[in-house]
């Protein structure tokens, strides 16, 4: 059962033809894609459409046309995403959202609207001001625009009740993901990251209630595998993977090199809102409030109070991790510009760290394995001493 569930998650995760989305659309419903990180998926859902997380083409997609659109010094996710689109794999999407995460995704939104002038394209400009009367008001206006746009796209009205219901569905989903992370942090040998990787990725294409059910089932099944035993590995936090995805092999390599990844920022958009969103009162206001006050910290979000590394240090402490592995996509400005600040915060606390870069199609893991192995050994020795 567990094996089958993971096989299903794996096939959803690997499927660059978006078969699950096609199935959803067979009954005449619509689907709206979005890049990482945060978009208010509740609004798409409340319009009866399927939110689809687009996170590039991974290692299996051969780039034929995409390279002609991007210089060599730009990360890989935009070129593989363009490749997906030009190979018609994204024709199933009725619209596409580009959240404000970096200049690459931002400019990609303009490229999209030039390439596909007949499709709905929207740049989702989340506020960097967290004052309710300022950033809050702005974000509410943006959400109102999205609501109107989705109503038009879906040919329906998004009632407040429908939106509240969708918020409840996503609260369930986020709760399940939080439970998954909590379980993993507690017993990573039973709930390894290499498996939650697949489960989270399945959430890119599954309707949220199905995704929630899948996670719940996994949480119930994994402990019954009697072969899963604690193996005295080092507990690490993985940081930097919030946008372009690492290949699955990279995560497996880290585990084989002796690391339990107890926390990460992988697909952070799925759990961007860190608490339940209220389901009573004005639903748009509730989404605004959640964004302003309960967002995850990430490199592209301004930290008004400063102390950028604090959340990482706290995460290390809360999860009793012994070190941090910075694992960022090559050429990723937000992650790589953030890193020196995070490193400094760790150094101040004497928390060990190591760093390397990847791209979604990294295929050689020998160096990473060696580096992570050495790191894992050294922090184990260090904590024993």
């Amino acid at each position, binding site marked *: 059962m567990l094996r089958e569930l993971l096989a299903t998650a794996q096939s959803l995760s690997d499927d660059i033809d978006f078969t699950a989305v096609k199935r959803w659309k067979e009954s005449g419903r619509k689907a709206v894609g979005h890049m990482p990180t945060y978009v208010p998926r509740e609004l798409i859902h409340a319009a009866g459409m399927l939110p689809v997380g687009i996170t590039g083409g991974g290692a299996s997609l051969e780039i034929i046309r995409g390279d002609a659109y991007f210089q060599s010094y730009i990360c890989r996710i935009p070129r593989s995403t363009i490749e997906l689109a030009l190979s018609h794999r994204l024709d199933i999407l009725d619209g596409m959202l580009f959240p404000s995460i970096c200049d690459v995704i931002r400019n990609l939104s303009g490229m999209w609207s*030039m390439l596909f002038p007949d499709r709905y394209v929207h740049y989702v400009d989340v506020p960097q001001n967290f004052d309710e009367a300022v950033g809050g008001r702005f974000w509410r206006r943006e959400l109102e625009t999205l609501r109107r746009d989705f109503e038009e796209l879906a040919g329906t009205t998004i009632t407040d009740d429908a939106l509240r219901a969708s918020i409840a569905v996503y609260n369930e989903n986020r709760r399940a993901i939080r439970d998954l992370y909590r379980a993993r942090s507690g017993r990573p040998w039973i709930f390894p990251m290499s498996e939650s990787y697949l489960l989270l990725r399945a959430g890119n294409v599954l309707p949220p209630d199905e995704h929630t059910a899948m996670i719940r089932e996994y949480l119930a099944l994994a402990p019954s595998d009697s072969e899963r035993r604690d193996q005295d590995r080092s507990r690490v936090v993985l940081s930097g993977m919030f946008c372009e995805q690492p290949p699955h092999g990279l995560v497996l390599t880290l585990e084989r090199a002796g690391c339990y990844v107890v926390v990460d920022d992988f697909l952070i958009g799925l759990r961007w809102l860190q608490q339940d969103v209220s389901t009573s009162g004005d639903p748009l206001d509730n989404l605004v409030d959640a964004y302003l006050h309960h967002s995850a910290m990430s490199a592209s979000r301004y930290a008004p109070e400063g102390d950028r590394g604090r959340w990482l240090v706290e995460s290390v402490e809360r999860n009793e991790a012994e070190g941090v592995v910075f694992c960022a996509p090559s050429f990723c400005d937000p992650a790589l510009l953030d890193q020196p600040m995070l490193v400094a915060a760790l150094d101040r606390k004497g928390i060990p760290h190591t760093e390397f870069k990847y791209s979604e199609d990294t295929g050689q893991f020998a160096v990473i394995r060696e580096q992570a192995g050495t790191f894992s050994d050294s922090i184990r020795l260090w904590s024993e001493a």
Partner: protein
Amino acid sequence: MSSIRKEDSMLLQKQMISDHYDRLATAPEDGKKVVYTFVPGNLNELVRSFDLLPVLPEINALQSGMRKLSGEYIAEAEKHGHSEDVCTYVKCDIGMLKKGNIGPTGKRLPKPDLLLLSYTGCFTFLKWFELLREEYGDVPVAMLHVPYQANGRIEPHQRDYVVEQMRTEVIPKLEQVSGRAFDEERLREMLRLSARAEDDLVWTLESAKRTPSPIDAYFGGVYYIGPIFSAFRGTPEAVEYYAALRAEVQERLDAGLGPITPEGPMAREKYRLVVEGPPNWTSFREFWKMFYDEEAVVVASSYTKVGGLYDRGFRHDPDHPLETLADYCLGCYTNLGLPTRVELLERYIREYSADGFLINSVKSCNSFSVGQLMMLRRLEERTGVPGAFIESDLVDPRYFSAANIKNRIESYLQMLDQKRGGQAILPVRTGTIACPPPGAA
């Protein structure tokens, strides 16, 4: 005579800059407070209305590039753990700081009393000032988030958002740092001066519509935008500078003369080009020479619009001081969606009767560079004018390959020659500003 007048404006600018850096060097003793901020979306009039002195780290970085110091500064930052992959302006600035923060005139720059994070058109700005905040310890930051013009138009709620941030975040922090109350009348006065200087800047840039162009709107243009994009917008010195510049360009125009280069006036204008993207600063002179040696003049450029798109009609409006500052921020070039950037460049190619256009794609700057290959194709399709694409960097000397770039430019110009088959090109004119047809001047 025109070369004497040329020197007038050059000297004036040099003096303005050197006075400014002198004031900065003695700011701590003089009790003057200092605000660091960025070029796009800078609120210079507002800052100066509080008698605060602006420092623009991007300008320091480009100056370090021109003074051949950036390589060393970048290496210093990389030694401190900054990735080789990221924007070199940031690393150049951090490296300069680590090495004592000596500014372009050889004098030490004061620490910031406030970091005014005008987050306009570039995500790196956010990280840059977060990094500086960590470097300087307790410095307050005023964050001004300027929404992106994905559709190329300003929505009222976007303007409101920027204005509200000025009211609730920026002005209170400026008041706190300066110990002065906000003086709206003073701000209006400065905005009035801004608009006057802006008129003359636009006139100067548009003089390139004439054939031959009296200016180079890229290599010369970066000097022309210097005062208004940095610490001087809204000051009487800027008004004076732009009036002097205009008078000089008028003279060259009247005499039918071409642009002045470091090796003297250009005798002939063989190619008229539009350029997209920032220049390379570490080999700026060498880069420029590749153009003027081939008698190629840049008649319009997008880089000279990063600090404001005045030639599309925007002027600072003293009657609506905060709203006009908001519109200014929102309208800077790199804050515009790609389709709008393509439209703008298309207009330049047509209105300035360009024979060709060139994209200098810099490794540092995702804000400029992402999508430029597509812009190239779109512009070729829309104008029928062939484009060229070269790659370099702003201030990292490792990414300027002179031989490659020179080859590229030469073969591109040869291709333009072949295309016109020895005939002068008479491009379609769709411009709104009356000027004589090519060759008439």
